[in-house]
């Protein structure tokens, strides 16, 4: 299978913190990959470098043949990014927001209409799309933002903590949307989460990250087997312990 994303030794040094240290992994076409780790592990930092928002201190990431360091503007054509805890313009209606965002990806009116139509069907907000986003519940806003992130059929959709702060039902709905898009449309996803139990259900492969280091990557089943654990949380515990022994 073709690789959509190749991350090679991505490193980010903030003033004092080494937030990502030589992170390397890749994602194949149609695959859902999740970075999991506790708060402050470096998930958002890694994701922001791949999304061309942060300039890596060292290393590179290649998406569909383009480097984030050398050609960030080409990368931006191929990806969409949903920040963690993202909001939207509160005074805009949902439908206006979709049109505005679609207009950033293309100038072709027909394509814009097609994108918006796709997002409209996917988000399931119906008539509420004509209301201001400020009046939406957290779950509604997240569905709007998620459909925005996938309406343009990007080669890689990057979603930072897509289900955080949602109730179980909304979280399940979001996970189903992601799985369906990957299965039916061969879209690739890079997700992050600190909820290691939940992420098992949605991702094909996971990478466990702690203190800026990507410890292991692999399918949840493989990892559980390798570490003799019953769930990913236990896997994480053992991985971190092992690394401290060494």
């Amino acid at each position, binding site marked *: 299978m073709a690789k959509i994303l190749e991350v090679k030794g991505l490193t980010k040094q*903030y003033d004092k913190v080494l937030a990502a240290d030589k992170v390397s992994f890749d994602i194949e076409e149609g695959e859902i990959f999740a970075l999991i780790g506790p708060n402050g592990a470096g998930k958002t930092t890694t994701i*922001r470098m791949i*999304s*061309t*928002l*942060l*300039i890596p201190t060292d290393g590179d990431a290649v998406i569909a043949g383009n480097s984030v360091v050398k050609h960030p*503007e080409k990368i*931006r*054509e191929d*990806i*969409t*990014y*949903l*920040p*963690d*805890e*993202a*909001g*939207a*313009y*509160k*005074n*805009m209606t949902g439908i206006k927001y979709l049109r*505005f*965002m679609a*207009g*950033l*990806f293309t*100038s072709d009116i027909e394509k814009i209409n097609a994108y918006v139509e796709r997002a409209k069907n996917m988000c399931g907000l119906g008539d509420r799309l004509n209301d201001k986003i400020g009046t939406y519940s957290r779950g509604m806003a997240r569905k709007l933002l998620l459909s925005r992130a996938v309406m343009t059929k990007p080669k890689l959709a990057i979603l930072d903590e897509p289900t955080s702060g949602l109730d179980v039902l909304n979280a399940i709905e979001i996970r189903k949307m992601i799985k369906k898009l990957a299965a039916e449309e061969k879209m690739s996803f890079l997700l992050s989460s600190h909820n290691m139990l939940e992420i098992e259900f949605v991702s094909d492969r996971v990478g466990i990250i702690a203190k800026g280091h990507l410890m292991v990557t692999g399918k949840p089943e493989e990892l559980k087997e390798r570490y003799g654990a019953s769930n990913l949380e236990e896997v994480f515990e053992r991985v971190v312990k092992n690394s401290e022994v060494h």
Partner: protein
Amino acid sequence: MKFINLLKKELSEIITVQMIATMGVLIVVFMMMGNLMSGAIDSVVEDATNPKINICDLDDTELTDSLINGLKDAGAEITEISVNSDNYAAVLKENKIKNLIIIPDGFTESVENKEKPKLISVSKMESAATLANITNDNSGAASFINNCVTNIVAQQTGMSMEDIDLITNPIEVDENTVVADKTANISISTITAKLASQSSMLPIVLFVLIMLTSQSLITSVSNEKIDKTLETLLSAPVSRVSIITAKMLAAAIAALLNAVVMMVGFLVFMKDITNGVTEQLGEVVGESLSVDKALDVLGLNLSVGQYILVGIQFFVTMMICLSVSIILGSLVNDAKSAQTAILPITIIVMFPYVITLLTDVNALSTVPRILINAIPFTHSFTAMSNLMFGNVKMFAIGLGYQILVFAVCLFIALKLFKSDKILTLSLNFGKKKKKVQTED
């Protein structure tokens, strides 16, 4: 096309119902102020032509009676009051009056003995406002009485009125004012008064505009940061230059709308005032026309070309504000800081604004002059006066300096947007310490 999409979004974010409402309120306030002022002026004019004078005649002679009748004939509304204490405050309060003239016992005797008779004038001061005290002033009545007594003295001494005039005003001053190489036959105080009322408008409008526009742009950028819509924008396939340009252009359009509204409001306000005066004081009209002519002669009325130059300078000023606002907005990470982030702009605009209201910057001694001229906004407030008084070189230096400052600020703003600094830098105005603590 993508740019228009961005611009449309920025405009709809900035030109909100709130902003339109603010502009509406602004116009209404100006109109109300104009009405109020012209009302106040009407009553002042009314009182000036038919003054209400309270007189207490303690002398009560033929002479004082004729003086009072003379005042009545001249159109004054006289109320006679009896006073038996020299506690003037109590007297005014008791009689519910605001002014009082007392002709003391022995007034006539003094006149007859060729001594200077004494007249007591009491006026109540109710506020520091210029218009409020005019009607309480007795000086009109006093000078009328003065003239009458002059007449009597002239008869007594056998001098003609011309003789007396010659003695009191032996010289005639022919007042001339020179501006650069031009001269006009008018007093400098008349010109100054006229200029003060005329040229105060543009700096006020500019000042308010800077504040409004900066605040709205800072809010817009910091909101994008707080809601993380900025990250979405920056990861989308649009150039970052166009993101900044759309924001600045939208703010500039909003500023222009505000400027038009304020100028119209101000003109309505000024018109109400001048109408109030001109309708009723015929002579004043003649005089103010000649002041206008004098301004023309002296080159103090800006030509269209000069107004365009001032317009360009104001435009560059706004551009500096916009780019600085973008930078300040980018440094903000929470809603509270967004409120205070405008402070640096307020300070560097307020300072030269006040200074230029009070004094001529070019006439200061070297060090303060250089310091004040180093503040870019100083040149916005001195632009008009520099052009009026022929300091073209100073104007050009100011404009060039502002363009340079704008270029630097815009460069920094672009640099912020093009690097990842915009996401990693943050100045939490006044909150820095707290944040460090929570992180530890």
